[in-house]
């Protein structure tokens, strides 16, 4: 089983069901994972640059620091499996198959965006890719995801729905309602909590009655709960490989907590002064990209040249995405009135 040697975070899987099966990734897949993580980071760096230039408006919640989750989890899915998520959705959208050009154009509010410029950063959507959306009301995506899983169950079509939520959404009633509903009807869904330790500016530990037992919150619904290191792409991938297989086989819902950290603030407008410097520095050491790179190098899966090349490729792709977004037209005025109802 491939493991990163540089991981500084203690494994906590001992008190949950053991992650038994290895995902057995080959070298090509490992490098692809790294390339995807770098692509997300470059996308987010560029989106921040474009925000300061005034090309991106409104809210911008970047995924930097959390890339291992999207890459580790979504790569387990089939193209026709479903992802439903929250507003910090860029990274997951890219991994599920939305092109950086279409994602960046959406951030720019351009007609070439994946949602035709009408959704923006928080509502990246590509139904054909099974990326059913970023949703901006905390917890609001959970019932929708439950509905996609219900549709699969109704049709008996063996698709799996992966629903991401943040730690803040754990305190919404919908979390509890949907876990219960999913279990009562044995729906094929994984509720995946990206615990980045803060709900906007509020530390999760101040707002959760049992912040150390998040992964146990599903126990009351008789749904198995797991905790993984969200900065370890291989650990996430291992667990998800096992869960997706079980759920596709009809096991019913599962719940995952992955601990991670936002490198940036809640949104671009947030300098995140509320976070202790020590904490920020500690998590910087756990940045999932350099630690995965070190592991790839140490285990002979990549050379520095290959790594450098992957960074260059990602940078180039993102430059092209930004150029595409900039050159694309805004939606025509008459687009204001289209898509309110079916034509």
């Amino acid at each position, binding site marked *: 089983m491939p493991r990163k040697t540089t991981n500084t975070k203690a494994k906590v899987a001992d008190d949950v069901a053991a992650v038994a099966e290895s995902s057995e990734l080959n070298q090509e897949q490992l490098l692809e994972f790294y390339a995807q993580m770098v692509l997300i980071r470059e996308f987010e760096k560029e989106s921040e640059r474009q925000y300061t230039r005034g090309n991106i408006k409104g809210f911008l919640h970047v995924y930097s620091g959390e890339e291992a989750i999207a890459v580790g989890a979504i790569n387990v899915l089939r193209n026709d499996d*479903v992802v*439903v998520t929250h507003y910090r959705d860029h990274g997951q959208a890219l991994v599920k198959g939305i092109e950086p050009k279409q994602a960046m154009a959406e951030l720019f509010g351009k007609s070439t*965006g*994946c*949602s*035709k*410029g*009408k*959704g923006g950063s928080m*509502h990246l*959507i*590509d*139904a054909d890719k099974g990326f*059913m*959306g970023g*949703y901006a*009301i905390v917890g*609001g995506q*959970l*019932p*929708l*995801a*439950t*509905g*996609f*899983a*219900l*549709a*699969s169950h*109704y049709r008996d079509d063996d698709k799996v729905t992966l629903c991401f939520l943040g730690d803040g959404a754990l305190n919404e*009633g*919908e979390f509890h*309602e*949907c876990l*219960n*509903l999913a279990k*009562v*009807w044995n729906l094929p869904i994984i509720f995946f909590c990206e615990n980045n330790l803060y709900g906007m500016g509020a530390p999760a530990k101040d707002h959760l009655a049992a912040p150390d037992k998040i992964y146990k919150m599903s126990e009351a619904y008789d749904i198995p709960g797991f905790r993984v290191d969200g900065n370890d792409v291989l650990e996430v991938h291992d667990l998800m490989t096992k869960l997706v297989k079980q759920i596709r086989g009809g096991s019913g819902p599962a719940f995952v907590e992955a601990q991670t950290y936002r490198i940036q603030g809640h949104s671009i407008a947030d300098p995140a002064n509320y976070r202790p410097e020590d904490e920020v520095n500690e998590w910087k050491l756990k940045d999932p990209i350099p630690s995965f790179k070190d592991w790839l190098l140490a285990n002979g899966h990549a050379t520095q040249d290959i790594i450098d090349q992957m960074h260059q490729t990602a940078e180039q792709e993102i430059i092209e995405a930004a150029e595409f977004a900039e050159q694309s037209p805004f939606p025509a005025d008459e687009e204001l009135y*289209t*898509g*309110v*109802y*079916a034509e």
Partner: protein
Amino acid sequence: MSTEMTYRQAICQGLTEALDEDPRAYLMGEDIGPYGGAFAVTQGFWEKYGPRRIKDSPLSESAFVGAGIGSAMAGLRPIVEIMTINFSLLAIDQIVNHAAKVRYMSGDQFSVPMIIRTVTGAGASVAATHSQSFEGWYASVPGLYVVVPSTPEDALGLFRSCRELMDPVMFVEHILLYGSRGQVSEGVKIPLGKADIKKEGSDVTIISYSKMVQNSLEAAAMLENDGINAEVVDLRTLRPLDVETIIKSVKKTHRAVVVEETTKFGGFAGEVVSIIQQEAFDYLDAPVERVAGEEVPIPYSMPLEKLAIPDTQRIVSAVKKLI
């Protein structure tokens, strides 16, 4: 050819047709299974169609309404029952922020072909939290349809049209109408956005919807004794609103009274009055009157409840003020 049936039977027939004709259609809601529905609309459905088509849901309005939305986005045709419109407040985020928005903010990638059936109205002595009429709120949301039938014929005819829509519908039934009877034409299908003149008249237009149409017709009958010939317009759908029929009638009668059950302040009737003054100002011989609920929570005690909601006599009085 027509058949007499109750409002309940008409809706029951609409649901039966949906389940029999469309394998993508399923029902979901609280106690719609073995219990047969809080208002007995789905009696026998559980036994006939089974738990796959009749999803008897936990008390989780936000979760099951949202699950209906998600399943509609995935291509199913959910018909979701929210036991009363009062409980729709527990699901209003899903209805307003998700069902009504997802087509637009996805750039037209998703449809939400879902019918949400719910029950509005006061007059059943069930006190303040179970007696409200929020259909007007939903009518203010682009992306939703709001249907408010007053007769069995309209209920079935409109329901059949709702099944063909690719966007979410609030199908709002009135708590006091389930037992009301009427003739239902064979094959009736009524498009949304088409008001119905329930009684023709020449002296004043009474505009209403849902249960208040009954009161308006009663008022019109009483006014006949005083030589006043009132026209009664049943809006049937609040969104889309049939402005043309309203304006045509007001231009004919030169007077209008708008009647609704909910509290007056901020009510849907205000929108109707606004449209009349904009589009038919020069035709009006008197200010437009409104008859609506008092600005109070609905009380339990029956004599007080009667004071809180409009009745036939108040409609008669409002008309007489104009003439």
